[in-house]
């Protein structure tokens, strides 16, 4: 089966064709990035607000825990029933999946900044916005990006389900292979998403490391 899979993967038609796997990877990444952009637009401001002010913290923790407990497949089916076939349902379901990690990363990033550093910055006459942008975000950036990174990985893995409601992405190979009992194609789909995930994670880890401010003791 491995050889069949490799043959399938290397057949030019399956690589660059209109439904070739390069195309599917492109779609897959696009879904992931759209989802992440929407989730970040929602979760980052809230997370930064909670982390900076300390207000609504228990509400944020509770909301994070609750949304984490929601099964994405269930949500997807529900939204697909409401919104119909298309991109809307999977994107909403994936946003729900991504928000908790980003939110938790943002507020715990800010909480990791020593209180005395913030107190000193405030006593020097920084405005609250300056404290946020010049002190808290730069010092908490590793955890903030860490939240985005784990959200990215979760969405990338779960975006396979987009194909379940008639969209593309690498999940298409799995569902196609399942329907036609074509296991080499299924295997090709899983291999591709695994390689893609590892590559993305490595890249994001490098981004995270590069963002670490100078002068901070290396922790990892």
């Amino acid at each position: 089966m491995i050889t069949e899979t490799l043959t399938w993967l290397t057949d030019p038609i399956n690589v660059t064709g209109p439904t070739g796997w390069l195309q599917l990877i492109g779609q897959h990444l696009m879904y992931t990035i759209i989802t992440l952009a929407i989730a970040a637009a929602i979760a980052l401001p809230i997370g930064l607000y909670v982390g900076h002010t300390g207000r609504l913290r228990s509400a944020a923790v509770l909301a994070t825990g609750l949304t984490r407990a929601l099964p994405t497949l269930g949500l997807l089916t529900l939204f697909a029933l409401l919104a119909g076939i298309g991109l809307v349902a999977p994107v909403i379901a994936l946003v729900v999946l991504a928000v908790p990690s980003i939110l938790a990363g943002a507020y715990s990033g800010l909480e990791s900044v020593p209180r005395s550093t913030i107190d000193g910055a405030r006593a020097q006459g920084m405005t609250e916005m300056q404290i946020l942008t010049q002190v808290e975000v730069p010092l908490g950036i590793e955890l903030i990006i860490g939240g985005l990174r784990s959200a990215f990985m979760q969405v990338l893995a779960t975006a396979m389900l987009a194909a379940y409601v008639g969209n593309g992405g690498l999940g298409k190979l799995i569902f196609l292979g399942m329907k036609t009992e074509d296991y080499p194609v299924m295997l090709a789909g899983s291999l591709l998403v695994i390689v893609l995930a590892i590559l993305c994670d490595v890249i994001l880890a490098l981004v995270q490391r590069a963002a670490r401010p100078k002068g901070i003791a290396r922790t990892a």
Partner: protein
Amino acid sequence: MISFDNVTKEYPDGTVAVREFSHRIDSRTACAFVGTSGSGKTTLLRMVNRMVDPTSGSVLVDGEDVAAMDPVKLRRRIGYVMQASGLLPHRTVQHNIATVLLLNGMDRRQARSRALEMMELVGLDTSLAERYPAQLSGGQQQRVGVARALAPDPNILLMDEPFGAVDPIVRRELQHEMTRIQSELAKTIIFVTHDIDEAMLIGDSVVLLRTGGQIAQAGPPEELLTNPADAFTADFVGGGSHERELTAKTVNGRTLLFDADGKPAGVLRG
């Protein structure tokens, strides 16, 4: 001039940090607030730059009520040095010192050269300018803290146990450096400490506080030593327990002074 006018700080849980405290600190003098923890000395200090707002009463700087001022602007014109230095760990020494200058809109080049001047003033080698705080010793970090506070040339300097976390030898060095800087710059200083020796060294006047910001005694250091108001003061300054009493004895034709334990403390100059 800084005046505390009947200030009280009560927290929502009912704890009273300071009750009806009044005191005046003349311009260009250093006043040391000394007391044990819970005496409200840091709370009082932080009322001056509105890091704490009093529940009642008012704090006046040169006759103006700070409550009517914008806290951010107020803080930018008052130097603040804290115990843990409070430096920004992701910024170089030079950048840290220039913080307030840059906040006030000074251009980068000017702020940088001012920062280097400040390093010299506080006795820091300018070769350390590009280091990060974590690469400095505790004493050096405190010097950076002092340089940062002095950079915008504020009239008022608030110092919250600035030398509390460094070892005794470095602390003495910093204390003497501080008296030298003060004799050059003559700022209005409030210096908070729990160390009576430090208070008497730095302060032109000393305010000795009991729990809740109650003044046990206030006055020049020599007055606290020679004329303690009560047993609390006497005990705190050490006069009552004979700790500060020296005995003179002539040895080899010179007058030596011995402390309470009989150890030689110094030579008397005639």
